[in-house]
Every structure is written in C-alpha cells, then in structure tokens.
C-alpha cells in the first residue's frame, strides 16, 4: 500500500457471515471496510461513499449482479471485484463485459482476495511513469520496447510484444480472450481465439522457465489469461 490514507472498500453481499469474514480479512490488510447487503443499497452507498474499490457478490437477492454493474458503470469507474461460483464461465465473462475488473471464485482464500484487490486498485493509481515491469526474471521495458529474460534480450515479434505489453499493463488481473482480440486485432477478430492460443504458446516458450507448466502467463478456465504479478 503506497498511499498515505487507507483504501476504502465497499463489500456488497447478502450473506452476513461472508461480509464478516471479508471485513476481517480486509481490515487485517488495513483497508477501510463498508458493507451493503443488497444491490440497491450497494449502489447508493457507492454513490455517497465514493469507495476506492467494490467487492460485489453476483448472486444478490434483489438485483442481478450484472445489472448492478451496468448501473454503476453509468457514472462510476470504481474498480469492481465480483464474487462468483465455479462453473459460471458465462457469468464471469458477462460480469467482465459489464465492467467488472476481475472475479474471484467461491470458495476463495484470503490471500487470493487480497492479491486480486491489490491488482484492481492499481488501476485507479496507475503508475503513469511506470516504464519497466518485472515479472520473475523477465523485464519489460515499455519505452525501449525491449524484453529481457535473466538479463538477455528476448526477440519477440510485434504481435507477441503487443500481447505481452497488454497483459503486463493489466498484470494481476484477468483479461478475456475478447478483450485481447479486440485490442490487438480489432473488433472483427473476436472469434479467432486460436490466433491467441498460438501467440500465447510462443510467448510461453520464450519467457516461461517451463512452458508446459506456466508460472506467469496463466490460463483462466474458459475466460482468458492472467499475467501473474509475482
């Protein structure tokens, strides 16, 4: 936590126990925690409190989580981490499309929660001057468009570099196939996930210690990729 004042996080969940647990974990990590138990309350709290980040359960009793996101995104760019259940690939993608920044699958660990939250909160405080990113032994120099691995330069094609840069800019956060395809190949390429698979394989071969068991360039089941912020 680099900022002087603590981050304020709004937890929107209808389960008391889960709210209590999230408060425990977040307060232990020096966040300031606010709670709302319905989507409606969550939206009004978000408007009055202007939290730095929102943890939103997709399964709320009053409003569909995606609807909450849609209304929130009409006026706010606050980072949102959604809580979802396994097997809800469509829900996850839907939430990400509706403006969520990342998701967490229940049951989750406190460690995961904090890592995801840290990653999405970075978005509101982008290190504008951030020119070099280190991931493991890989160093990405955005100004020089240079990638080094253990000090030695790695030759990447233009597309490979673009893909890596995009993931690095969103490191720690999930990016969907569609987001990457749209960003790198344009809106018409959204169905061409096989392009992406091929480039990802190349990137892993060039950057991962063991490309078969990637440590950094992780696949998110049925959703997209995540560059793990190690």
């Amino acid at each position, binding site marked *: 936590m680099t900022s002087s004042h603590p981050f304020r996080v709004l937890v929107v969940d209808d389960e008391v126990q889960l709210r209590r647990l999230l408060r425990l974990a977040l307060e232990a990590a020096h966040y300031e925690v606010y709670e709302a138990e319905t989507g409606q309350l969550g939206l009004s709290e978000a408007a009055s409190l202007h939290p730095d980040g929102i943890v939103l359960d997709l399964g709320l009793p009053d409003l569909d989580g995606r609807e909450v996101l849609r209304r929130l995104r009409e006026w706010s760019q606050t980072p949102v981490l959604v809580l979802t259940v396994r*097997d809800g690939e*469509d829900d996850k993608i839907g939430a990400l499309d509706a403006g969520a920044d990342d998701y967490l699958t229940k049951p989750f660990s406190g460690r995961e929660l904090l890592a995801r939250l840290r990653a999405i909160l970075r978005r509101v405080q982008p290190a504008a001057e951030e020119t070099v990113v280190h991931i493991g032994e890989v160093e990405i120099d955005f100004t020089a468009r240079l990638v080094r691995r253990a000090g030695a330069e790695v030759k990447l094609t233009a597309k490979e570099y673009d893909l890596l840069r995009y993931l690095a800019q969103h490191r720690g956060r999930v990016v969907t196939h569609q987001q990457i395809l749209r960003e790198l*190949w344009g809106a018409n390429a959204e169905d061409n996930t096989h392009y992406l698979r*091929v480039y*990802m394989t190349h990137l892993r071969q060039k950057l991962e210690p063991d490309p*078969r068991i990637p440590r950094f360039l992780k696949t998110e*089941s*049925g959703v997209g990729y995540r560059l793990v912020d190690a």
Partner: protein
Amino acid sequence: MTSSQKNAHPPTLRERLLAWPENWREYALAGSVVAVITAAGWKLLPESYYLSVGLIYLLGVILLCLRVGRGPVLFAGVLSAFLWEYVFIPPHFKFVIATLQDGLFFSTYFVVALVAGELIARIRAQAENERQREQRATALFNLTRALAEARTLDEAVFAALRQVDGLFGAQTSLALADETGAGLVAHFSSSYVLEGADRAAAEWVFRHHRSAGRFATNRPDGTGYYLSLVREGQAIGVLGVKLPPSAALSFGQRDLLEAFARQLALSVEREHLRAASEREKLLAESEKLHRALFDSVSHELRTPLAVINASTENLAEADPSLRGTLVKEILTAVRRLNRTVENLLDQNRLESGLLKPRLDWCDAGDIINAAVESTHDALDQHPLQIAVPDEMPLVRADFALTEHVLANLLHNAAHYTPAGTPVTLSAGIEAGGRRIFFQVDDRGPGFSPVVRERLFKKFARDEGGRPAGLGLGLSIVRGFVVAQGGEVVAGENPAGGARITVYLPHATPKLGSPT
C-alpha cells in the same frame, strides 16, 4: 336363409340390390329346365311314355337341387308337377287325372320332388354352416396371432380393429378405461369417433357390462353396436362396430364379435398387468437409487463436517504445536466438502439438460495444467507424469468441462490406487487424425469386469477400493465428454492398472496468418 347371411361379410347396399336378380336367375333356371323337359318330352316322346316324362322331371328337379336354393327347387317341383299333369297325363291340357294309377304317380312325384328339394336344401345349409364355422375359427386364429405378435398394446389393438373392419366391412371404435377406471378414452386406432348417441351407448355399455346400440335392445338409437370388454367383473373398455346402414348382424357374427371382444379384453388386461409390474419395478429401483444417493450424500457431507467441527473445537485449546496439524485437517475436509458439492452440482447440471458446451480452441497443455492444479492436493501421494507431444494441436473443446473431466479422472486415479504409485496423464491425436485423446493411466488394481460394466453409471463405486466418494465422478466425466461430442473408454494399462481414455472430435482451425 337370405344371401346376406350366407356370406361371412354382410352385403353392401349394392350387393343387396343385386340379390333379387341373382335369386330370380335361380328361379329362371328352374323354370327353363322344366320348360326344356316339357318341350323335349312333348316333341320327342310318344304319348304313351308320359310316365317316363315324370321320371325325367324328377331327374331335372334333383339336378336343380345341386345348383339352386330351396325356393327355386320347390318352384320347379310344383311347376313340373302341374305341367306334367296338364300336358302329359291324359287327358291332355286338362287338370283331370283319369286313372287311379295316374293319381298315385302324380302324388308320389309331387311328394318326392318336395322332399328331395328339402333334403338337398338342408345339406346345403349344413355345408354353409360348416363354412361359416371355419371362417370364424380362421378369423379368431388370425386375431389371436395378431395379438400375440404385437409388441405393444397399441399395435395389438390396431391389428384387431383392422381385422374387424375387414371381416365385417364395418368401422370400428375402441375406447379404454382411463387411469381412474371411471371414464372412457378413445383409442387412436379407432376408425370412427364416438359422438352423441354412440358415445352415450358406449358409456352405458361400460357401466352395465352388457351390449347395446343398434341390433340390441338397450340404447338402440346408436348407429353402432357396442360390446363391453370385461375382465374379472371389471369393465376395461368398450368395442364399437358400425355396420353399413343396410346390413344386418347375424347371430354368428354377434358371436364372433363377442369372441373378439373377449380376446381384446385379455390383451388389454395383460398389458395393464405388465405396465403395473413395470411401474412397480421402476419405483423400487428409483427408491433404491434414492436411498443410495441419500446415504452417500449424507456420508460425504457429514464426514468432513465432523472433521471440521472437531478440529475447530480443539483449535482453541490445542497445544500451539498441534494447531498447524488441525488447520491442515480442516483444509482437507473443506476440500472434500467442496468436491462433493461440485460433483452434485455438476451431476445436476447434466441432468437438468442445461449443459451447453462452449466450444472454443483450447491449448491441451492449458487444460491439463488447470486440471493438475485443481487436483494438486489429491495427487500429493502420487508422482504425476504428463506426456503431451510437442506438436499437440489446438483442441476444439469446452475448456472448463474438459478441465473437470481430467480433474475427475486424476482424482479417481489418486483415490483408488495405493500411495506412491505413479499416475500418467497423456494427450495426443489418435492414429488416423480424427480424434484427440486424453488418457489417464494408473498402476492400481484396475477394473474388474463387473465394475467396468457399470463404471460410468451414477453412484457406481469400486467397492474394492477405498469406500469414499459419491460415485458420481465417472458419470460426470461421461456426461461432459458426450456433451462435447466425444467418448470415454475404460481399459487396462498395459503395464498393469486402469486406463481411461477420453476422445474428443478433432478439427484443424483455419489458421490464416493473423496480422
């Protein structure tokens, strides 16, 4: 005996109209035979041979008996007697019998001709009866055979009704008792619809177990004739027959219809009994399944809950050195609980029919990694070898479903084999290039033939192995693979142990050069 009764099927209107000329033809034949004998006798024979002419007449009448019915024979007998007396017996052309001998001849002739006609007619009637009996036997035989050959009640009823249609030249209708046994439901193979007076007649028959409708004393306003199908005092249906308006129903036909109704009733009852026993069996089966599910779900949920409960209670008072162990126990129990819930949800997803695979191009290595990661803890006692060829193509699959499939297979391999034995997960293209395969090999006891038989069924567990798990794992594996157009095969690891292979259809992506 009218002609309509001679034929087994009742005459149509046309036949009935033609019946009179046909009968007239017999009378004409009789008349002409008598006329020919009269003319020939008059022209060719001397006057004194008039007694011989009588014998020739008699011969003619007897011969006629072979061809025509009783009426024309009698007609010929009477006509010839009077012609004989009028033309041949002296004095000619006068109804006078002059001598006693002539009188005796004439009256004997008259009686012999009548008796001969009557006798012949009886013999013919008997033959006709015989023929009808045979027809009836054949019809019943055909019906019984059709009923026996039919695989379902519907088939049987259809066959039976079509036979009645053909045999009686009629339309037929069958209504069976509904489930409550109080109402009638028309069978689809009926050739006419029960309406109005017919419906009322059929319902009357159903309630009173007696026939009704046309040709019957009860409810004669219906256009059809209705018989009840009764088994053991219980009406199970009504058979209706609609004969053409001009046709009559003979006793023989009525009898035949009743026999048909009895056969049909037997058939229907047999089907009811079969269905009832089937239902009972299904019920027992589902009850058994239900109990098995309940037992194993309750076991699979309670065991980890008990562990969590006990460990948490101990946690507060436990020696600090033990806390790590207790927390580990809790985590293990939580994972098991989570797995049970996931399997139940997956199975439910499969059974609800809501499962729609999202096929996309996937990296087989990615799927394998995800599966290995999620089964990391279960596999800690087993060295895992992964064998994926370098040139492994992209797989067209649902990533998450395939990941679950592999995770379940890995979990099973770890669970049912002794600690320390290796597990191998391999992937590749099948020889021929049509399918991609994922294969999990273990070095455990393998599958016994009995187990292999029901391996992919719900709640099937290898009783020889460690008694744990819901027995849903492989059923889910198969469900997920089949949903993606693939196939799962259980086999043997050539090196000893079990082998399960998952096949998915293989296609090559149209890889242009993306720019």
